[in-house]
């Protein structure tokens, strides 16, 4: 028996380059402000705070520490941090609410990928003895995965181009998107190959950003005064795969499959999938068994903006917005982390009368 928890607020900023400190505290301040306006709550309504970010993205130890200032954390707050995408911070917060110790949480994530050379920094996620010394970069690893899928016939180039075209076209109406505009699959295929077999548009743009979300139990003291609609969490699961790339079948995503099965994907009409590379959306869709009637990434998804360490939370937020607006009755959101879809999280949510 889990406690009923709803997503009641979400705010974000995404941009190509954030001209500010690596702790992104200046980005978080207006985002939190928007959340108070959205929900009618103040910080005293929040029982638990949890964030996700990375020191290596910022280039310094303890980069998350100054971000706490955005909370205004005196009097002190109950607070935690994961060195992961903020989608997993949301998981920690949801668990905390399940224990009954707290009733509500504000979760935030931030990342300034533009401070360093992102694909090179991510080489540090590999085995430090046998892989990182080669500086195997994140784009190359995704390209190897794409080729494995292409050459096995799991998917083809035109399907990848369709993903790109649909994402960029959908993102046209998303103010937060970085790469966007009406695009056809032919437009995509006309682009030269970059990291063969990938084109630049197959790869998420390097993005900066921050985002935050409020979740609450239905029996929280401040629940009745909340403004706005709710998206009720119905399933929340995550799984990881081995670190050794050669022990995984890169054409499939076992961890997404098992997380999805545990979370329960039946009946979803919309999915926000965190696929920083076009072919990964195809792998994820397959792993989750999503039919063609399920709308994928109406926000444009990570291919149009992928602020590291918040992009996963953004998928959840974008799905929640669709539920709030009445455009989805039951939505799925997914977040990924690690090289070539190593770690995956699935959250399902629904509208209730």
């Amino acid at each position, binding site marked *: 028996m889990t406690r009923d928890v709803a997503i009641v607020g979400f705010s974000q900023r995404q941009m190509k380059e954030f001209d500010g400190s690596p702790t992104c505290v200046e980005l978080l301040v207006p985002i939190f402000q928007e959340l108070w306006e959205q929900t009618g709550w103040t910080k005293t309504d929040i029982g638990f705070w949890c964030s996700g970010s990375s020191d290596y993205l910022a280039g310094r*130890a303890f980069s998350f520490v*100054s971000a706490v200032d955005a909370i205004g*954390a005196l009097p*002190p707050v109950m607070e935690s941090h994961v060195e*992961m995408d903020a989608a997993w911070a949301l998981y*920690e917060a949801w668990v905390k609410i399940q224990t009954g110790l707290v009733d509500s949480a504000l979760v935030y994530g931030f990342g300034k990928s533009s401070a360093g050379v992102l694909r090179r920094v991510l080489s540090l996620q590999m085995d430090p003895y046998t892989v990182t010394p080669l500086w195997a970069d994140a784009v190359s690893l995704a390209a190897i995965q794409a080729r494995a899928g292409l050459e096995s016939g799991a998917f083809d180039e035109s399907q990848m181009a369709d993903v790109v075209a649909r994402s960029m076209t959908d993102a046209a109406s998303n103010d937060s998107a970085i790469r966007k505009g009406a695009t056809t699959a032919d437009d995509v295929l006309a682009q030269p190959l970059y990291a063969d077999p990938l084109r630049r548009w197959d790869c998420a743009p390097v993005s900066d950003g921050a985002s935050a979300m409020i979740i609450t139990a239905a029996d929280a003291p401040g629940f009745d005064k909340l403004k706005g609609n709710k998206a009720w969490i119905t399933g929340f699961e995550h799984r990881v795969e081995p*670190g050794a790339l050669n022990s995984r079948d890169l054409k499939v995503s*076992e961890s997404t499959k098992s997380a999805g099965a545990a979370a329960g994907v039946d009946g979803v009409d919309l999915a926000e999938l965190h696929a920083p590379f076009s072919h990964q959306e195809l792998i994820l869709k397959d792993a989750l068994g999503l039919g063609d009637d399920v709308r994928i990434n109406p926000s444009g998804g990570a291919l149009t903006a992928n602020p590291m360490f918040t992009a996963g939370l953004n998928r959840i937020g974008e799905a929640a917005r669709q539920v709030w607006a009445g455009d989805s009755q039951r939505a799925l959101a997914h977040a990924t982390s690690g090289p070539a879809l190593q770690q995956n999280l699935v959250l399902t949510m629904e509208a209730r009368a």
Partner: protein
Amino acid sequence: MSHKLAAVIGVGQTHHRAKRGDVSMAGLLREAIDRAMTDAQVTFNDIDAIVIGKAPDLFEGVMMPELYLAEALGAPGKPLLRVHTAGSVGGSTAIVAASLVEAGIHERVLTVAFEKQSESNAMWALSVPVPFIMPVHAGAGGYFAPHVRSYIRRSGAPTHIGAIVAAKDRQNALKNPYAHLQNPDTTVESVLASQMLWDPIRYDETCPSSDGAIALVIASEDAVAKSDIKNPAWIHGTQMRSEPTTAAERDQVNPQAGRDASAALWKQAGIKSPIDEIDCAEIYVPFSWFEPMWLENLGFAEPGDGWKLTEAGETRIEGKIPVNMSGGVLSSNPIGASGMLRFGEAALQVMGEAGEHQVEGAKKALGHAYGGGSQFFAMWVVGADKPSH
């Protein structure tokens, strides 16, 4: 509301050393994990989820090392969380693991924390020069020394109190085969004679830099009942609090976050008088003076009086409130693991498995960790009996 009982059923730690040249990072972790799982009488098949914690990734030069460590952690196919809350991380990590059980989500969770400090140099990692700023305070000792001075001024404590703590913890470490420092000759006099590094902090009043890991297996009430474990450490309460690093008029000697966390913890655990009801405490003391400071912050003594407990010998293993029976952070400091070591040592005490540094008849124990600029606090109370309230 579905708060379920949870208990520590297995504790395992490495031998902590300045450099564990015999193992890789994965090997270091597994030494602790394998011991914890043996202690808990479980295998990886029995584990539902893994929660790992460590301090900054810059220490080992691996970004989110849990990703590459997945196999060593037995994590593939399971949920894996990575916590990072500065020096308090070991404590926070254990609390996140406990919450997975307390929420009724999992039956058995493996949690592990580590640091392999010999891969780099913590002083370097913590002092990467920030442009426009002039670095003057020189590492963690330089950061905390002014606040120790403030404590001495505020409390009027005699200047040898820190040496009493250091000598006691180093002597306690001799009773703990896993402790890094094993210096039988450390006395109050020898500590006072050691070099003044960050005045008022002397060399022997500082923690070492260690390689080490600790793992715990945390299980639900049902899982305990189904096991052959007869002496679990029941979790009576967990709390975390954070406040900003710097703020106008922030109390850096007796931070409000620590006071609030402990007050909430005692309430949660049904404890009215901590000094009378807690049998022993593992408190995060990386510089000796933090023992009296945290005794006050935690409510074991009134503000300004913590040093009197130390001076009177009440924090020795046979005292009224034994502190850091294992030798504490002053004797072993694998940073990311240090907080969980406090939590795990508290569990060992109430399990009756602390060996030579066992406090006779310990029934309730505190595990405590802090981090950042004395701003992140994590703590738990564990007991030999199930919570009664």
